[in-house]
Structures are given as C-alpha cells and as structure tokens.
C-alpha cells in the first residue's frame, strides 16, 4: 500500500484529493489546522469506504515549530507502519490574506504558508521520500505568471498587496519544484506543480477582509468543483513512466513562466534554507 501526505486536506482541493486517493487505495495522511474540519473530513472518507486508510494530523503549518512537530509525528508513523516510505507529498495548504500579517517568526503569512511550510515539510520528510522514490506535488496556480520574485522584499513590507503576495508565493511553488528536481531527480524523487484552474472553494473567504471576500464570492461561482483538479494529483501519483514535465493542468503538461529558471530556483533555495534554518544538502545528517 502506498502512503501519501496531503497538507490542507480538510477542505477544498486537498479534501477532494484525499477522498480520491483513499478510493484508489492509498494510505492517506492528511494535515489540517482545524480539529473540527479534520474530523469531518475523516468521517466523510470513512463513510464512503469503511476500509479506507486515512489519518489526520493537526498543525498550523504557517508556524515553523508546528511544521517541525507534525513532521516528527508523521515520520514516527511512517517508520512504525509504512516501512519508513512515503510515496507522495502533496503541499497544498494555502491561504489568502487581505493585509500584511506575520507569523510568530515575523514572516509574511502567505509566503510562510504557501511556500515556506512546504519547503520545510518536504525537507523533514525527504528521507522517507527518498526511500520510496516518491513524488512531491505542489498546488500552484496560473496566477504565478506575470510576476517576478521581489528579492529585495519577499515579505512585501513595502507596499503589500494581497494579489502580489499570492502570485509571488505561487511562483515560488514552481521554483521550489524545479529546485527539487535539479537536486534530487538523481535520487529518484520528482517534483511537480498542479494548476487546479479556477476552483469553487472558500479560500478567499477565510480570514480576509470585505473587498477580497466580495471579489472571491463572485469569482468562485465560475470555478469548477474541486474533484476536477483532484484527478491531476491522482494522475501524478499513479503514472508509471515518470513524466519529465514540471507543471500540469487536467493531467497534461502546461507551459509556465519564464521566471522559472535555475538561477531563480537556486536563489529561492538559498533564501528559504536560511529562513527555515535548514540545509537540504545535509538531509539525514542530524
């Protein structure tokens, strides 16, 4: 049985992906921040198939100490019951913030959750991913196009704008995936980014102000149901001949921003390692 870890698996795209993968026979380990939503999600999955293998872990992934804590729990679980193997990690948890807000470390929240959380969690789970020659899948978005990383002010302390912060964090997802492939493809690990398209979820209505709320309420009506993008994750988990591409929409490769270069990926790696106080080159040495 293959094991998959999905962050933000308590609602929206993450939940539908968890449902689908559970149906396909995966051992699903979901991460969410709300106990109530996690319990509901688990019940839903079990109600469809009482034999489904599903477990939820609670963590506010925006906070690095929480990522560290939950990854220890998951590693222990994997070692105990899964032979230390992880076949796929889906870094999907994400948020939108109307205003500049910070985590306990003082990092801007969209950057912290949409990018850094996945960067740190992947690092923590890398030994298990290596062992299973696993895949790392990020939830990206086409909104990553038409923007550059604000290298001199990634936290956007000068002129914060919700859309800029969101777009930049989604560009970071692609840069991170590219950086992972450059470093670990030789170990059998592959990283991908899924473009879910416009999806009818509540992401823009959680912890946002009046304007963002209003815009998203109107916009999400045009979105597809979250079980549509879920198929692309399942495809990337299942497909036997490892695809070479990086960015996928409806199970097909798609072109991405010219900003996704080795130079930018390396730069993001270096910055993120510093912000998380880790070194990918030294995985497994601690």
């Amino acid at each position, binding site marked *: 049985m293959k094991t998959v870890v999905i962050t933000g698996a308590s609602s929206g795209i993450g939940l539908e992906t968890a449902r689908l993968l559970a149906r396909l026979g995966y051992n699903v380990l979901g991460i969410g921040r709300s106990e109530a939503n996690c319990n509901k999600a688990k019940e839903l999955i079990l109600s469809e198939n009482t034999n489904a293998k599903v477990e939820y872990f609670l963590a506010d992934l925006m*906070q*690095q*100490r929480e990522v560290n804590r939950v990854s220890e729990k998951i590693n222990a679980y994997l070692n105990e019951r899964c032979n230390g193997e992880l076949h796929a990690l889906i870094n999907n948890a994400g948020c939108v913030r*109307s*205003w*500049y*807000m*910070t*985590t*306990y*470390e*003082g*990092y801007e929240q969209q950057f912290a959750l949409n990018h850094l959380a996945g960067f740190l969690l992947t690092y923590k789970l890398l030994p298990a991913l290596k062992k299973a020659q696993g895949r790392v899948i990020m939830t990206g978005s086409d909104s990553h196009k038409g923007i550059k990383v604000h290298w001199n002010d990634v*936290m*956007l*302390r*000068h*002129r*914060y704008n919700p859309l800029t912060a969101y777009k930049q964090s989604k560009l970071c997802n692609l840069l991170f995936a590219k950086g992972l492939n450059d470093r670990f493809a030789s170990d059998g690990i592959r990283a991908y980014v899924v473009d879910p398209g416009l999806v009818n979820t509540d992401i823009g209505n959680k*912890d*946002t*102000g*009046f*304007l963002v*709320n209003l815009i998203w309420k109107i916009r999400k009506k045009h979105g597809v149901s979250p079980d549509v993008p879920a198929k692309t994750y399942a495809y990337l988990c299942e497909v036997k001949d490892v695809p070479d591409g990086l960015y996928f929409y409806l199970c097909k490769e798609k072109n991405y921003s010219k900003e996704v270069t080795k130079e930018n990926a390396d730069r993001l790696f270096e910055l993120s390692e*510093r*912000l998380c*106080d880790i070194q990918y080159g030294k995985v497994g040495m601690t």
Partner: protein
Amino acid sequence: MNVMITGAAGGLGRAMANECASRGYNLFLTDINEDGLTCLKQGLERQFSVTVTTMACDLTNTESVDKMLDVIDKHGIRFDMLLNVAGMDYEGEFMGHEREKLVKIVLLNNAATLRITHAIIKRRRPGKKFTIVFVSSLASMFPMPLKATYAASKRFLLDFATSLRQELKRQDVNVLTLCPGGMVTTPGAINGIKAQGFWGDATTNPLEGVVRNTIDRALSGKRLYVPGMLNRILSFLGKIIPSTWVAKVIYWRWKEVSHNGSAS
C-alpha cells in the same frame, strides 16, 4: 542604534521589530510571551544581520521589571529608542467584565508604560538623541462606550506624551504618539473588521506602512501620527463635535457591529 520594544511578540510589535531590524538597528525585545520572543528572534536573525536580545517580562510586575533592568545594567546596554507597544483591551460593556480584568487594562496600558518609560529614559545612551514612541489609538480621540476603559487609557497616553515631550525637549528627546485606527495584528482582528463590512476595510490601516511611517516621523521630531485620511477626519470631528453626541453615535454603531459580529 539600540531599540527597546515592549509587546514585541504581538502583531504590531513584530512588525515594528521587522522594520527596525531592516534598518540595521539592534533590538532588545520584551513581551510576556516567551515562546513568541524566541520565534521572533530566530526570524529576525535569519533575515537581518542585527543583534537581537530578548527577555520575557511581565511589565505589570515590579519585580519582573527590576530583574530585566538588572540584566540590562549588567550588560551595560544603553538605548537610543523606546517603542511602547505593549497594551491590551477587553471589549464590551464595563459592567459585563470581571472587576480585576478591567483594572488590568490600566495597569498595563498606563502604569506599566510609565514604569518602563521612566526606567529606559534613565538608561538612554549618553550624549545621543533619544526617541520615544507611545502606541495610543484613534480611540483616544473620543469617549468610547463599550471600549470605555481602553479609550480612556489611550487618552492618558496621548496627554501624558504631549506633556513629557515638552519636559524633555531641551534634552534632545523626541516623543511621538501613534494613534492608529484598526490594524490587522491578530487573527481575531479580522473578524472585527469583517463585521464592519465596507467600513472595516476603509478604516483599516496597513500595518507595514504604519510602522515605517511611525519610525520615520518619530526620528524626524514629529509629535503625533494618525495614519489614514479618514482617521484624520474622524479625529478632527472628535474635536469639534460635543463629546456627549460622539458617545451616543459610537455607542449605537458598536452595538450594531457587535450584534452583526456575533450573528455571523
């Protein structure tokens, strides 16, 4: 430049700390939340090459403050700037709260702020300019039913700061009072803003801009900073409209908002 920030682990304190660190200032951060200070220190040191010292302290407790001052003196730390950020509020009717909770607002917002201000002015770097910021609030401009204690405690800071500024003017000290409207510093703040609908967005000041302007203005000798045009208009109205009328309007408005807030 050495800067002391109180209430550093909260939303506004973290933003202030980031702003100061990005300018290359060394920081002495204090807060009652020790874990928060540890995380913030890590975050700042990973981003900026500045020295960050932290010490958890309950500013309402004399012993706790004395202990912190001992550490400061032992290391011979002297300051160029003090940012008084620590403060608290419990919203709602005066009689709806426990007695000691209400008293605590004044103990922290006023008594503790005086304590730390006195102590840190004494520990200013000799022969150098010194800058103090008090974080008051737009609420200091009006009597505010349902935020009565808080608003009055912030008025105390505003008036106190103006007087202190005059006393210390010849000693190369500037005192600035910051009177922001709503700022999104806590997850809870978002719900409050949401409950006000359009007006919530309109009166909300962007945190990152407020902290940058606050430091700029404090360093250039300004007295008062009310961020945002709308808030400046409101504070002006607060001066010309009779305070009993203001109290009435505010009471009905907040009643409605808290009603909406609990309904949603």
